[in-house]
C-alpha cells in the first residue's frame, strides 16, 4: 500500500532535469545566448521544484504510516553474496534508487525551492559576468548532485551525490579561477573535504562489513522482507543479540560517518574551508555554502539516526562538537570585517546548533533548524550580495554604512533575516533555535549554556553587521557612492519571498508550549523513530510548560541584549569597539586572526606534509636512486662485461665456427644458385627430361 500518484511515480525525474541542462550547458553552452541559458537552467530547476512539490503533496496526502515512497531504478552495484561480520550471508547490492519519505521531502523542498529562488536571483547577479553558461551549468550540476544525495535510497548513492556536490563546490568556489585566492580556496575546500570523506568512506566500509547493506530502509518497497535496510538490519541484529546498543562497532561507524559530516558541514576541526569558500560568487555562497550543501552532513546524520540512536557515545560526541563549533565560530564572527565572512562564520555556528540538536537526540529539531536556517541564511547571503552589488563590489563593512534608505528592499529583508537568526519571536529562527535549546537543556544544562551564550553572540554580531552596513554614517568610497542603486527585480523578488519564508517558515513547527502542535516533528516522527521502539521512547520527551516558558524568555532576553549591545557599540558610541579592542589587545588579535587556526593547521599538517615530501624526495634521490638504481646499474655493468666476454668468445665463437664450416661445405653447391631466371628454368627443363626418362623406364 505504498502511496502513488503521477508526481510520486515520477519523482526520479527530479534530479534529471538539472542534469540534462547541465550537460547541455557544459557541452554546448558556449553557443547559446544568455537568455536561452537562463530560460533553460532556471526552467529545469523550476521543473524539478514542481515535480518535487507535487510528489511531496501526494506523499503528505497519504496515511502517516504509509508516507514512504521507494523506487529501485536499477541494480547499480550487484556485488553478490558476502558474509557480514556477524556471520550472516547476505546478497549485497547497491541500487540506483529513489527514497522519498518525510525527511527527504523536507530536504528536497528546501533544495529545489531555495535553489529555484537563488537561480532566479543569479540571473540578475551574474548577468554581467563572463562564463554565464558555465556558472549555470555548474549550478545545475550541483542541483543534480544535491538532489541525488537527498533522494538517494542508500548510503553509497548518497556518497555519489556527496562527492558530486563537493566537486561542484570546488568548481564554483574557483569560478573566478584567474584569481589566485579563489583557486586556492577551491583547492582548500576540496582537500579538507577529502579528509572528512576518508572517514566517511571508512564508515561506509565498516557499515557494509557489519550489516551487509547500505540501503537506508526497506520500507516502501514492494516486498519489504526481500530487501534489507540499515534500520531493519540493526533491529534484526539487536533482536538476535548479534549487536547491542552502544556496541563499539556501531560507535565506530557512527563516529567515522560523523568525520565525513564535519568535513562537509564545516564543523570543528574541519571548518577551515568554509570562510575561504566565500571567494565564490555570492549566489554560490547562498546556495551551496549556506542553504544546502553544508547541511548535507546534518541530513546524513539525521538519515542515519537509527544507527546513532544505538551509539549514545557517538551522539554525545556529535553534541559536544556541535556546541563547541557553535560558540567557537560565533566568537570568530565578532571581529570580522568582511560581510560575507561574518555570514560564513555565522553559518558554521548555526550548523553547530544543528549538530547540537542531533547530538541531544532531537533529530526533528535539527532538521527544522536546517530548514529555517536555509531560508534566513540564504536571505542573508543574497541580501549581502545585493549590498555588494550596490556598492560596486565592496565587501568590507568598514566601507559601508547608512545604506538603509538607498536600498530599501534589501535593507528591510536583511533586517528581517537578522531578527530571525537572532531568535526574536515569532520569526522562524526563534521557533527552531528555541526548540534546540529546549532539547539541549533537557539533555544537559551545560550544553544549553553554550548554546545560550552563542545565541547572544549571534544577535550581537548580526546586528553589528546590520548597524555597520545600513545605519550610522556612510563610509562608502565616494566614487562608489554615486553608483549605489537598488538591485533589479529578479534579485529583490527572491529576497522578498525568502523574507516571507523567514517569518512564517517556523510556524509549521510552532512549539507545543506556545499552543502549537509542532506538526513538523510529528511529520518527521516516522523517520526519527530509530531502529527500535525503546530507543525512540528515549528521544521523545516533553519538558514542562513552565520550564519551557522560562527558557524562551531567557533566550529572547539574551538576544535582545545582544542587539542592544550592538546598538550601543556601533550606533551610539562608536569609539567603544576600538577601546574594547585596545584594552584586550591579545584577545582581539586572537579573534581577529581567527584563533590562529589556519596558522596552526599550516604548521601542523600542511608544512609537515611538505616536510614529508621533502624527506621522501631526499630518500628518493639518496637511497632509491643512489643505492638502488646506481648500484643496480653498476652491478648490471659488471655482469654485462662478463657476458660480453662470454658472448664474444664462446657464443659468437661457436657461431663463427659453424658458419665457417657451412661456408666451406657450401662452396660446391654455390654455382648452381646463379640468381638468373633462365638458369633456373633450365634446371626445371632438365628435371622434366629426367622425370620423363624415369617415367619411361618405369612404364617399360
Amino acid at each position, binding site marked *: 500500500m505504498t502511496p502513488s500518484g503521477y508526481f510520486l511515480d515520477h519523482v526520479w525525474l527530479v534530479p534529471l532535469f538539472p542534469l540534462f541542462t547541465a550537460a547541455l550547458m557544459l557541452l554546448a553552452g558556449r553557443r547559446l545566448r544568455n537568455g536561452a541559458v537562463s530560460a533553460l537552467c532556471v526552467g529545469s530547476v523550476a521543473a524539478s521544484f514542481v515535480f518535487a512539490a507535487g510528489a511531496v503533496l501526494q506523499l503528505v496526502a497519504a496515511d502517516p504510516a504509509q508516507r514512504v515512497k521507494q523506487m529501485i531504478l536499477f541494480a547499480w552495484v550487484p556485488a553478490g553474496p558476502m558474509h557480514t561480520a556477524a556471520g550472516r550471508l547476505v546478497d549485497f547490492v547497491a541500487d540506483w534508487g529513489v527514497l522519498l519519505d518525510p525527511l527527504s521531502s523536507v530536504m528536497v523542498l528546501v533544495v529545489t525551492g531555495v535553489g529555484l529562488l537563488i537561480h532566479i536571483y543569479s540571473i540578475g547577479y551574474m548577468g554581467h559576468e563572463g562564463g554565464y553558461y558555465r556558472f549555470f551549468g555548474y549550478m545545475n550540476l550541483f542541483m543534480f548532485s544535491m538532489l541525488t544525495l537527498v533522494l538517494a535510497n542508500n548510503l553509497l548513492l548518497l556518497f555519489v551525490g556527496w562527492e558530486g556536490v563537493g566537486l561542484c563546490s570546488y568548481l564554483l568556489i574557483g569560478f573566478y579561477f584567474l584569481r589566485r585566492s579563489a583557486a586556492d580556496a577551491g583547492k582548500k575546500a576540496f582537500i579538507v573535504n577529502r579528509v572528512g570523506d576518508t572517514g566517511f568512506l571508512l564508515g561506509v566500509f565498516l557499515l557494509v562489513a557489519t550489516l551487509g547493506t547500505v540501503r537506508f530502509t526497506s520500507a516502501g518497497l514492494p516486498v519489504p522482507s526481500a530487501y534489507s535496510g540499515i534500520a531493519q538490519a540493526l533491529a534484526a541484529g539487536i533482536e538476535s543479540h548479534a549487536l547491542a546498543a552502544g556496541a563499539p562497532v556501531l560507535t565506530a561507524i557512527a563516529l567515522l560517518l560523523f568525520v565525513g559530516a564535519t568535513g562537509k558541514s564545516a564543523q570543528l576541526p574541519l571548518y577551515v574551508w568554509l570562510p575561504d569558500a566565500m571567494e565564490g560568487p555570492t549566489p554560490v555562497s547562498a546556495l551551496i555554502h549556506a542553504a544546502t550543501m553544508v547541511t548535507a552532513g546534518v541530513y546524513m546524520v539525521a538519515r542515519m539516526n537509527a544507527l546513532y540512536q544505538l551509539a549514545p557515545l557517538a551522539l554525545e560526541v556529535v553534541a559536544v562538537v556541535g556546541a563547541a563549533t557553535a560558540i567557537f565560530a560565533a566568537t570568530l564572527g565578532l571581529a570580522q570585517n568582511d560581510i560575507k565572512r561574518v555570514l560564513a562564520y555565522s553559518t558554521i555556528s548555526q550548523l553547530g546548533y544543528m549538530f547540537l540538536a542531533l547530538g541531544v537526540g532531537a533529530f526533528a529539531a535539527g532538521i527544522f533548524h536546517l530548514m529555517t536556517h536555509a531560508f534566513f541564511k540564504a536571505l542573508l547571503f543574497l541580501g549581502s550580495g545585493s549590498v555588494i552589488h550596490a556598492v560596486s563590489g565592496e565587501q568590507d563593512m568598514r566601507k559601508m554604512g547608512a545604506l538603509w534608505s538607498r536600498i530599501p528592499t534589501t535593507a528591510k529583508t536583511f533586517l528581517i533575516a537578522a531578527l530571525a537568526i537572532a531568535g526574536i519571536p515569532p520569526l522562524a529562527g526563534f521557533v527552531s533555535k528555541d526548540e534546540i535549546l529546549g532539547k539541549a537543556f533537557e539533555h544537559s544544562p551545560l550544553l544549553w549554556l553554550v548554546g545560550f551564550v552563542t545565541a547572544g553572540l549571534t544577535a550581537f554580531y548580526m546586528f553589528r553587521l546590520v548597524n555597520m552596513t545600513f545605519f550610522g554614517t556612510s563610509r562608502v568610497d565616494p566614487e562608489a557612492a554615486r553608483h549605489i542603486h537598488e538591485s533589479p527585480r529578479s534579485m529583490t523578488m527572491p529576497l522578498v519571498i525568502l523574507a516571507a519564508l523567514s517569518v512564517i517558515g517556523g510556524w509549521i513547527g510552532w512549539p507545543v508550549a506556545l499552543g502549537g502542535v509542532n506538526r513538523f516533528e510529528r511529520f518527521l516522527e516516522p523517520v526519527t523513530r530509530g531502529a527500535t521502539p525503546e530507543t525512540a521512547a528515549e528521544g521523545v520527551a516533553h519538558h514542562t510548560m513552565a520550564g519551557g516558558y522560562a527558557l524562551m524568555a531567557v533566550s529572547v532576553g539574551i538576544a535582545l541584549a545582544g542587539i542592544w549591545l550592538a546598538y550601543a557599540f556601533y550606533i551610539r558610541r562608536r569609539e567603544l569597539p576600538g577601546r574594547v579592542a585596545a584594552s584586550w589587545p591579545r584577545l582581539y588579535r586572537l579573534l581577529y586572526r581567527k584563533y590562529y587556526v589556519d596558522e596552526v593547521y599550516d604548521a601542523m599538517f600542511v608544512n609537515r606534509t611538505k616536510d614529508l615530501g621533502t624527506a621522501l624526495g631526499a630518500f628518493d634521490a639518496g637511497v632509491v636512486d643512489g643505492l638502488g638504481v646506481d648500484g643496480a646499474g653498476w652491478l648490471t655493468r659488471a655482469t654485462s662485461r662478463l657476458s660480453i666476454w662470454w658472448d664474444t668468445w664462446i657464443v659468437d665463437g661457436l657461431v663463427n665456427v659453424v658458419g665457417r664450416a657451412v661456408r666451406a661445405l657450401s662452396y660446391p653447391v654455390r654455382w648452381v644458385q646463379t640468381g*638468373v631466371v*633462365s638458369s633456373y628454368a*633450365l634446371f626445371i*627443363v632438365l628435371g622434366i*627430361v629426367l622425370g*620423363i*626418362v624415369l617415367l619411361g623406364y618405369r612404364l617399360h
Partner: protein
Amino acid sequence: MHLLDKALFYVFAGVAVISAVLVVTRRNAVHSAIFLITALLATAGIFLQLQAEFLFIVQVILYAGGIMVLFVFVIMLVNLDVALRQVQFNRQKWVAGIVVLALAAQLGLVIWTAGRIPGAGPGPNAAASPAPAPQLQPNAEMVARSLFGPYVLPLEIASVLLLVAMIGAVVMAKRKV
C-alpha cells in the same frame, strides 16, 4: 575439299612455326612481337579449322588485340637502343639447346609411340575429326553453356585472378607506391 583442308592446315602450321622461330631469333623486340602476332593469328586459323569459332575470336580479340597490344606498348616504353646492340643469347644457350632437344626427342617419341601402348588413347594417326564425331556447333552457345554450367566456379576463380592481376599490375607500374 579434303585436300583444301589439309593445305590450309599446312599453311597455318607453317606460318605458325616459322613465325615462332622468328619470334625467338629476332634481335628487335618489336619484330618479335609482330611475328608473335602472326603466329597467334595462324593458331587462330587452326582453331577456326577445328570448329572452335569462339576460341578463334577470343584468340583474336584477347591475344592478338589485347595482350599483344600490351606487349607492344611495353616494348615501346622500355625500348633501348642499347638492348639492340647487346648479345641476345645468354651463356647457357648450348647447354639449353641440348637439353631442349632431348626434351623434344622424348616428347616426339611419346607422341609417336602413343598409339602402340594399349589403353593410352588413340594413336597419332587417329583422325582429329572422325566421321561420327559430334559437331561442336553452335560453338559459342556450347562454350557458353559449358562455361556457365559445370565450369562456373573456375570461371569465377579466373575472374578473381584477373582482378588480382589488374591490381597487381597497377601497383607495380605506379611511379610511387
